[in-house]
């Protein structure tokens, strides 16, 4: 062969080798199985969320299969990674529902990505259970969309109460991410509750998720002299925001919602910058509830001593709620399965008692976590 042809052949071979698919897989068992789909952000900007919730989901599937499965059949989890990228989740959902023929789809943590898939799940009449999307719009898409966590009107209100009663703030600045429906929504609900409670909003500034430099906006906030700063964003951005705020000499408390929940938060911000910071979330591993303790022990056993976070616990509960509904329905056919999920009442899970209301949202307690000496610490519980 002549040189250019060899080069072309080598190039094609290199491309073939590199063209692998993104992380995916299936937990298969021989014989008839119940296929459940999952889409999660296993890599990318919100990787921690996807990995945690996937680990919780996997633990639940294994536990159920070890106990004999559901309705005599083993659960088969078919999962794909959406790389925290918009657009991917819908492609994955189409594959899971059309090709793999899953009977239900689990996902996602980020409200934006749940919203991406929900219309398709609804029109395909496949129940979608989101483990931890908190924006209320997700379940408004249709009656086949469920969630096992609390929603942002509750979270916004509890954070407003926390700022007023515990942080003793009167003037707050709001710094939200315009690119994430979660952040916009939580910011809005916080603002409503805060103003209704008589508080003053001295500054309202925006950023775009993925930005690295926040000093300009933080300087504006600093100038408005707030008593506390609310940042309802995701951990990758929040880490940089808190670090830069502290570097600019802003010492007031900074707080946010469950988007902060990630061990990476401490790495990105630096433990020395995470002083006077708080966030609300769904679950604390130091909970004394026996079911929570059982979950924590099982999770640690499976994942080499790693301590589970809220996303893992909710991932676990999403599977357990689904399995319970399948048992009650006695089938995986629609609309019986959908009705059974909607009828979930007083179901005991790792994150507490789950009852789905008329909007298919769960009403659960929240916990407030703070960071001390580079470690997350439970502060208080807020009931609905």
């Amino acid at each position, binding site marked *: 062969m002549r040189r250019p042809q060899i080069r072309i052949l080598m190039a094609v071979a290199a491309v073939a080798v*590199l063209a*692998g698919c993104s992380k995916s897989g299936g937990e298969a068992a021989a014989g008839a199985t119940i296929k459940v789909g999952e889409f999660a952000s296993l*890599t*990318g*900007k919100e*990787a921690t969320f996807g990995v945690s919730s996937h680990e919780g989901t996997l633990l639940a599937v294994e536990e159920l299969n070890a106990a004999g499965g559901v309705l005599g059949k083993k659960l088969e989890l078919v999962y794909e990674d959406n*790389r*925290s990228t918009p657009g991917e989740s819908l492609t994955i959902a189409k594959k899971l529902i059309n090709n793999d023929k899953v009977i239900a789809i689990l996902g996602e943590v980020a409200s934006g990505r749940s919203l991406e898939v929900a219309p398709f799940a609804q029109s395909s009449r496949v129940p979608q259970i989101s483990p931890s999307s908190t924006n209320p719009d997700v379940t408004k898409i249709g009656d086949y969309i469920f969630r096992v966590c609390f929603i942002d009107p509750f979270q916004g209100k509890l954070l407003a109460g926390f700022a007023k009663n515990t942080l003793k703030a009167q003037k707050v600045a709001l710094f939200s991410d*315009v690119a994430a429906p979660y952040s916009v929504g939580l910011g809005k609900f916080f603002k409503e509750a805060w103003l209704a409670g008589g508080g003053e909003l001295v500054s309202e*500034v*925006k*950023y*775009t998720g993925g*930005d*690295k*430099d926040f*000093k*300009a*906006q933080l*300087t*504006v906030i*600093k*100038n408005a002299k707030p008593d506390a700063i609310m940042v309802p964003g995701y951990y*990758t951005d929040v*880490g*940089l925001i808190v*670090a830069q705020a502290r*570097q*600019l*000499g802003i010492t007031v408390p900074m707080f946010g919602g469950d988007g902060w929940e990630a061990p*990476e938060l401490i*790495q*990105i911000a*630096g433990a020395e910058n995470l002083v006077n910071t708080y966030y609300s979330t769904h679950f604390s591993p130091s909970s004394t509830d026996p079911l929570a303790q059982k979950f924590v022990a099982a999770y640690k056993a499976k994942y080499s001593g790693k301590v589970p976070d809220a996303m893992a616990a909710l991932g676990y509960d999403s599977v357990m709620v689904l399995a319970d509904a399948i048992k009650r329905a006695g089938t995986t056919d629609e609309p019986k399965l959908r009705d059974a999920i909607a009828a979930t009442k007083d179901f005991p899970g790792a994150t507490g008692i789950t009852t789905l209301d008329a909007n298919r949202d769960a009403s659960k307690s929240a916990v407030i976590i703070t960071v001390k000496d580079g470690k997350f610490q439970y502060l208080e519980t807020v009931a609905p």
Partner: protein
Amino acid sequence: MTELLQQLINGLALGAIYALIALGYTMVYGVLRFINFAHSDVFMVGAFAGYFLARAVPGGSALSGIAVLLGAMAICALLGVIIEKLAYRPLRGRSTLTVLITAIGVSLLLQNLGQRIFGANPRSFPSLFPVHQFHLGGVVISSAQILVFAVALVLLFALRHIVLHTRVGTAMRALSFNPVAASLVGINNDRIISFTFALGSALAAAGGILYASNYPSIDPLMGTLPGMKAFVAAVLGGIGNIAGAAFGGLALGLIETIVVAFGGSTYRDAVAFAVLILILLLRPEGLLGKRTAEKV
């Protein structure tokens, strides 16, 4: 007043980083009349090189920081030479469009290789130099920002010295005037071009390390946006012009910060591209560039 001063410092610090990256774009263009779109991804490789080198070198002191910086610059200089030899040299003499598309291809290759090798998750960049906040009146400057100014200035003058006062620099300038004539007077074009790429890539690596020192979250796609803004900065100042790159970088950093400070934070990226369109419409040779007439 202090707010204005603080925003000024924020803008200049941001601008200094853009200036550093823009130097690489402008230099390669100045010598080769070619926009190296893979520059932003060499910037990314530089940041990752710094990340891994920092683990190998026991750190925290200024000396170890400089060692990591120089190490990353050396690695990227080598990368630049390899890219030039494999992707651009075989296309020497072809139309500029061909080489441009190849450059975009190299950029995509580096990004996706990065995602494959390093994973797509953002990583936390360690602090290479001791970090300190200086409070002057009501204004805060971080040592990382001062570092950017210092290193950018040093590299700017070093580059200027190389280009104006050394043999290699003279050869580079000769090449930019007329490649054929340059080879006729005994200049080894291939060597000089490799050197130009090595130099530009080293500057990209320095930019990557300083960027990561200020915004310590690195991922394989981190180069795209800063690279594009640095390109705009280079065009703004006058592409091919070293002083232009520095000026354009600072100007763009200030413009971006002012827009954000006035509440337009969602438009911060759009502003850079609006500037690009405006400058190409109104003064395409850049603010410090000279309009060259085509003599027929």
